[in-house]
């Protein structure tokens, strides 16, 4: 593979200095599980990799009453082992368990999945559904940004030269919340999603006025999208019934625009979006005892 310099700063300041020095010739690396393969395949050819794994600040994983903070260096495995996340963020737990395999999860990072911005990234749809805000530090200060503002297309983000995503702020969903991530693959393990659907409910049970619903997708659109009309119906729904589910599934299909490639045809992806939407929604109702 193409050769590069590996820099391992131990402070955020030092990382910024490196980005300043190398400009667009530098790329940021957390776990590197996507990045190294891109370099190997010649997709990107950085002269310098700025490795973030030695910066203590970026290893933070914390849960407060208001939110969860996931630092840029936190691996998917470490996230999965944290207390109470399955209570608050079941959809993200589902997605993490479907991401790659146990070995890769020991290295791949949650933030990295967002910054790679690959449409099939399993963690993006749930993070989006949980209204995640990225905290981004730049040379001139820091800013906050939602998932859908951050990712603008396949492998394209609004990250500016010199900026570093330092952590994700994921607000705790208003209880009782439920969430599910469903993924269609070619086999049972370690595969890129053919289609993924994430559904999150939060707010008062059986109170359509305050129930909040998010319905997001993996691998079926160029950038993160929500099925707004479908969400609306679910927010209004008094209970789960089959005809409502069918309508929601149809609206989900209409919200996405999958491509055909060697992994799946667009038709199959649309059919799976419908099926996985039904499953995700049923799971959300069931978790709240509303099935």
């Amino acid at each position, binding site marked *: *593979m*193409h*050769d*590069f*310099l*590996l820099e*391992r700063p131990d402070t955020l300041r030092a990382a910024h200095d490196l980005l300043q020095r190398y400009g667009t010739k530098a790329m940021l690396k957390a776990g*590197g*599980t996507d990045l*190294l*393969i891109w*370099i*190997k395949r010649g997709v990107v050819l950085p002269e310098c*990799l700025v*490795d973030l*794994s030695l910066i203590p600040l970026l290893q933070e994983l914390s849960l407060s009453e208001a939110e969860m903070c996931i630092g840029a260096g936190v691996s998917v*495995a470490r996230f999965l082992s944290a207390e109470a996340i399955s209570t608050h963020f079941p959809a993200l737990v589902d997605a993490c368990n479907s991401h*790659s*395999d*146990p*070995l*890769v999860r*020991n*290295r791949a990072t949650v933030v990295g999945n967002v910054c790679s911005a690959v449409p099939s990234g399993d963690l993006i749809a749930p993070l989006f559904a949980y209204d995640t805000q990225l905290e981004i530090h730049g040379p001139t200060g820091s800013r906050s940004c939602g998932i859908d503002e951050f990712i603008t297309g396949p492998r394209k983000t609004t990250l500016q030269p010199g900026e570093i995503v330092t952590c994700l702020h994921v607000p705790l969903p208003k209880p009782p919340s439920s969430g599910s991530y469903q993924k269609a693959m070619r086999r*049972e*393990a*370690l595969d890129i999603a053919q289609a993924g659907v994430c559904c999150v409910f939060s707010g008062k049970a059986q109170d359509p006025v305050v129930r909040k619903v998010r319905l997001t997708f993996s691998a079926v659109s160029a950038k993160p999208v929500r099925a707004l009309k479908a969400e609306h119906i679910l927010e209004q729904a008094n209970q789960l019934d089959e005809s409502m589910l069918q309508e929601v599934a149809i609206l989900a299909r209409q919200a996405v625009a999958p491509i055909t490639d060697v992994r799946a045809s667009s038709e199959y992806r649309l059919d799976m979006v419908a099926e996985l939407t039904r499953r995700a929604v049923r799971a959300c109702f069931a978790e709240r005892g509303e099935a």
Partner: protein
Amino acid sequence: MPGKKEVWCTVNGKKTRLLAAGNTTLLQALRDIGVTSVKRGCEEGECGACTVILDGLPQKSCIVLAQEVEGATILTSEGLVQNGTLHPIQQAFIDEGAIQCGFCTPGMVLSTWALLQSNPNPTDEQIKQALSGNLCRCTGYAGIQRAVKKSAKLLAPKLQGGDSQ
């Protein structure tokens, strides 16, 4: 690009010097010093033939850069052999028909070791999940499944006793 850097780490209990350029993977660096149990199967994180235990966690060394393991502790399957005696997991693999060509075996053994460290009494499903990142084309996984279960039985008293291996 500057030449190779020295990287000091502990490999199989011994203080070890690796030589690595920026783009040298841990897999390559280990193989360069003769630790050849870690194999080049795909070098893209798909097959698991390069599995090592890095600071206690099973990882695919083809997607770890060698320069990142400064100060780290690495265990490979050679390191499980003590005074000429195979580790109980290695012996269980032999006993249960879990080995054919042997190419995936070191990685499988290490993933098994890691599983039993954190989950000494895994269910069948947990075993399959833990090993789902290690491909095998020869055995159909049936012998490997038997071997992991046997390993759990063999190691149970030891693990509960708090031994490191």
